[in-house]
């Protein structure tokens, strides 16, 4: 606050800077965030561009080459059917990242929306929170079986075998994982709503929509960021559980979660097989976490001002 006059004088000297440029400047100066972003970009590039360079078909079985350790022909080794692990990691990453990011996004949007509405509008609170209780209580597995039974064939004909399953999985993970975010956001909003700056904003007649986007949302950003990082890990693992139940992608379709699950049985024989998917998931989550940290700091006006 003490810096305010100085900023004013600077603004006279220069045309007003875009707020998002400030955010970007702050983000750039956050070493962890930059590293995280760079690494995340690397993973994305590897997974989506890698298969152009490493052209082995991830489902091709070379039975004579099974259970091999790392070599020039197979840098990550091969699995129990002789499929190339590197190719499978790359192909699996595409699915896992796509599912992880979109499902996390869906669950965050749902959770934040419901949390903010419930926390901000007292009239909606009761109904929305009872809805949250209901979703928390629903038994996941039978629910999945019912959803798959009802919607799989319809989605399959609408989006094709893989597209349909993708939509279904994202939808299923999204609608079964938003509740924690909603509860947390609501709790924070309840407390925020009574703080002086909100009361002040309201007293000058700020409309609700602007109140929420301008004052409430930026201040509940940090728990949302934490939920986002945890959400990605959760979505990647849940996807593997789904495909194990036969509710996900076809079994020869590799994903990181599935690779990890399948190789757990071979933990003693071929430990390296577990390490690749485990490391990939952990590093992805870690890099998203650091990006989230940086983004949070960058969006926090108190820190940005320093």
């Amino acid at each position: 606050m003490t810096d305010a006059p100085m900023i004013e004088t600077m603004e006279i000297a220069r045309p007003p800077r875009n707020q998002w440029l400030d955010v970007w400047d702050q983000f750039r100066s956050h070493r962890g965030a930059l590293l995280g972003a760079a690494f995340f970009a690397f993973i994305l590039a590897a997974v989506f561009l890698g298969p152009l360079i490493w052209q082995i078909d991830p489902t091709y079985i070379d039975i004579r080459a099974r259970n091999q350790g790392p070599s020039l022909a197979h840098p990550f080794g091969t699995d129990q059917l002789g499929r190339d692990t590197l190719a499978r990691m790359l192909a699996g990453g595409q699915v896992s990242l796509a599912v992880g990011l979109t499902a996390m996004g869906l669950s965050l949007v749902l959770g934040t929306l419901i949390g903010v509405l419930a926390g901000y509008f007292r009239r909606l609170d009761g109904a929305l929170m009872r809805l949250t209780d209901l979703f928390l209580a629903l038994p996941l597995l039978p629910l999945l079986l019912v959803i798959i039974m009802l919607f799989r064939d319809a989605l399959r004909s609408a989006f094709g075998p893989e597209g349909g399953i993708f939509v279904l999985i994202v939808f299923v993970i999204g609608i079964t994982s938003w509740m924690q975010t909603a509860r947390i956001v609501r709790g924070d909003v309840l407390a925020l709503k009574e703080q002086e700056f909100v009361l002040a904003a309201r007293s000058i007649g700020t409309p609700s929509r602007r109140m929420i986007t301008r004052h409430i949302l930026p201040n509940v950003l940090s728990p949302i960021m934490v939920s986002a990082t945890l959400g990605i890990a959760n979505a990647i693992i849940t996807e593997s559980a789904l495909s194990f139940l036969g509710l996900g992608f076809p079994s020869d379709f590799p994903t990181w979660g599935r690779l990890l699950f399948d190789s757990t049985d071979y933990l003693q024989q071929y430990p390296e097989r577990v390490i690749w998917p485990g490391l990939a998931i952990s590093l992805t989550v870690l890099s998203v976490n650091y990006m989230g940290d940086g983004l949070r700091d960058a969006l926090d006006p108190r820190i940005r001002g320093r």
Partner: protein
Amino acid sequence: MFTYTIRRLLIAIPTLLVISLIIFLVVTLAPSDPTANLPLSIPSEVRAQMREALGLNEPILVRYLLWLRQFFLYEPLHMLDQAFGLSLAGEDMQRILSWQTRSPVADLIVQRLPQTLWVVGTSYVVGVLIALPIGIVSAYRQYSWFDQIGTFVSMVGFSVPTFFTGVLLIVIFSVHLGWFPSIYDTTLRVTDLSTFWLQIKQMIMPVAVLALYNAAQISRFMRASMLDNLNQDYVRTARAKGMTERVVVLLHVLRNSMIPVVTVIALGVPTVFGGAIITEQVFKVNGIGQLLIIAIQGGDVPTVQTLTFIFAVLIVLFNLIADVLYGLLDPRIRYD
């Protein structure tokens, strides 16, 4: 706050009834079948007879009402009978029987509660107890080496699923070192020091796996929330007034940072009852989580319905407790 609590408790009754109906519909509609796990040599006519004997031919609504009556009337009467040696329950008051074991579901739950509370409960307490200090220190010394290591460990702890960490611990500590048993003995009675030691030994691995997972999550929320508050004006004011750092951080900042953490912890407590399906499976703890998963796989509707409903009651209850706690942590929050 008191009237609010009473009102919420009253609203909880219709809410839970609706929840129970929806759970029942979901569980019943799910296409799993109580005879699915039988050998294929049992012909389909026999399977049809078995299903009929389970009452599967009745309409869904009739089965739901029967369950409601059993759960809210017959079971409490039987429990009173057992506790006080009465005979309130009539001959025809059938208890809720599991389809798989043909024994009362309530007995199954009572049988499995001890190991679930021991293992999952302990791990939750341990998880919270290590998560809070880690979260506080990480936030207070943001980007210190402690914070960085804490971040790394908790992210790995959360991203690597328990089916893997559990097996890894077993391979290291049971197979190679032989320190701990790989199979949990649910019949062990703690009567003296040596049996207590055995109990500790068989609990260490599952508790460690679950505690790591829980602590990872809670410490992240604790850290984020502390960070939000450490830069607030009131902290500066408090420091300016000459309060010691300890008082500022542990009294003022911590109290104001607890709201999201209380939410997360309150959401986690019912899951303690629900058990940890994967961890129980990996270590053969055979608690409530394993009961639930077996019942789901076996299409055992009465067991799934009863367990899930008790779970729902706990969720509603603990979310209410969390709401009341918000009011205590921040007196400005009012609900009426």
